[in-house]
């Protein structure tokens, strides 16, 4: 698989030879961890998805919201 090996080596050497890039990758991973593990998991649940299983239930809920909000 010379093509795959070439592609792998391309990325491998690229990452190995990084200087400022290493710091950036660390920041990217910390950031993604905060976003996807901490924020998404603990603070940003899917509001409708967590309350209702089916699309019908979700649409019924939203319609109820739309109908009850007007003053």
């Amino acid at each position: 698989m010379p093509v795959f090996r070439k592609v792998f080596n391309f990325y491998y050497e690229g990452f190995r030879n990084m200087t400022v890039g290493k710091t950036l990758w660390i920041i990217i991973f910390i950031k993604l961890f905060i976003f996807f593990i901490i924020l998404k998991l603990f603070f940003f649940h899917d509001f409708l998805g967590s309350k209702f299983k089916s699309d019908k239930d979700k649409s019924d809920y939203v319609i109820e919201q739309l109908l009850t909000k007007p003053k």
Partner: protein
Amino acid sequence: MDVSLVDWSRAQFALTAIYHWLFVPLTLGLSFIIAFMESIYVKTGDEEWKKITKFWMTLFGVNFAIGVATGIILEFEFGTNWSNYSWFVGDIFGAPLAVEGIMAFFMESTFIAVMFFGWNKVSKKFHLVSTWLVAAGANLSALWILVANAWMQYPTGMHFNPETARNEMLNFWEVLFSPVAINKFLHTVTSGFVLSSVFVVGISAWYLLRKRNQMLAKRSMLIASVFGFVMSLFLILTGDGSARLLARHQPLKFAAMENLYEGQSNAPLVAVGILKNDNTEPKKKDFLMKLEIPGVLSFMAFQNFDAYVPGIRDLVHGNPEQGIISVNEKIAKGKLAIEALKEYKEAGKTGDTAKADSASAVLNSNFKYFGYGYLEKPQDAIPPIGPAFYSFRIMVALGMWFVLLFILTVFFVFFRKPEKIKWYLYLSVLSIPLAYLASETGWLVAEFGRQPWVIQDLMPASAAVSRLTTGSVQTTFILFAVTFTLLLIADIKIMSKQIKIGPKDGGEK
């Protein structure tokens, strides 16, 4: 202080969008500037251009890495804080955002690797093509997001399904090529090009002040100022297009931007003005002082100096002579639409098809005023005038300054020794934060101006938010404020360090 759930949700979304937008415009514009520089390198074979390209590429990489995925938070917020809205628009947003995801992933992430890792591994031409594709990919990614935003300002190409309470896309091309979407895309990415050009000119000026890397600085200034000047002209052109579209599709935003209370023919543009409160009517503002240019507002709106531009009073209270219906009438139509939706659902439960058909007909004929049914009083339709008015003027004034800056830069680089003109160099450096300010105020005009709507005329923010506790939104607001501020500090620190280090191998012959 009693701040409502709606206001905190708004504040949270605004904070996230403002921070996200601090990273995006530099990516959009710097990618093209780098592509120009590398094109010159490939064409001339001059190694100095390669060093220059690689230097700016490093700064591009820092900004890209810190900024990447900050926009994903906005999508989290859609699902958590704005669930009614997300459900209501679901199908419309799905397609553009999916295309954006695929495009961003395949184009940017593939070719950005070649751009950074491929200097000595692929041919010069292939590397150059990759650099151009990164620029094109970044800007095309922006297209899909801006199409989604434009749809919120000018909903089109869809049909509301009362069965599911969702808007369903009828015509993808109508959504993609709506005049508001095209203009918004061109105006927004062009503003990113101008910001990036100011950034390059400013950093280059800093090198000249420090008396180092002078060749890099002058060459970079030349590319950035020519690009920035041409793009500034295009920015003015698309800004002019925005004004005409606003006057037609979001007239209250247009009137609020100008604080035009009484409509008039030969309406003047307020070049400079200071607002003061006017307690004769809710939300009304008066001028403490103003400097006007006669007829220009009419021309901006309708390309006719004598055209009638409706003011806030016409739009709120109606003006039968001009064929403008009042917000009260719109509220009545909106309530009819909401009531028809209720009847439609009830008819569905009892199986009364005749009643369902009749309700559906009433809903369809009044749907374009659906959101007005949620307003309590006519003045609720007026956006915050102060922020819209001042943001617009700051944006335009700074835009004009950047045109002058680019002209000065071209002139000094060609005919003078810019390294000796200290005032110009200091002003160039100072212009970097001003470019960000202009860019952000552009967003503030667009987003303050469209209040109270999340979807123009169809859904106000009050109907769009999820019923969460205010405390939970406050918590995430603080979390974001801390996280994004840390990211911004990291961005500025790493970038400043790279700027101080300068180009590898000295950057000078």
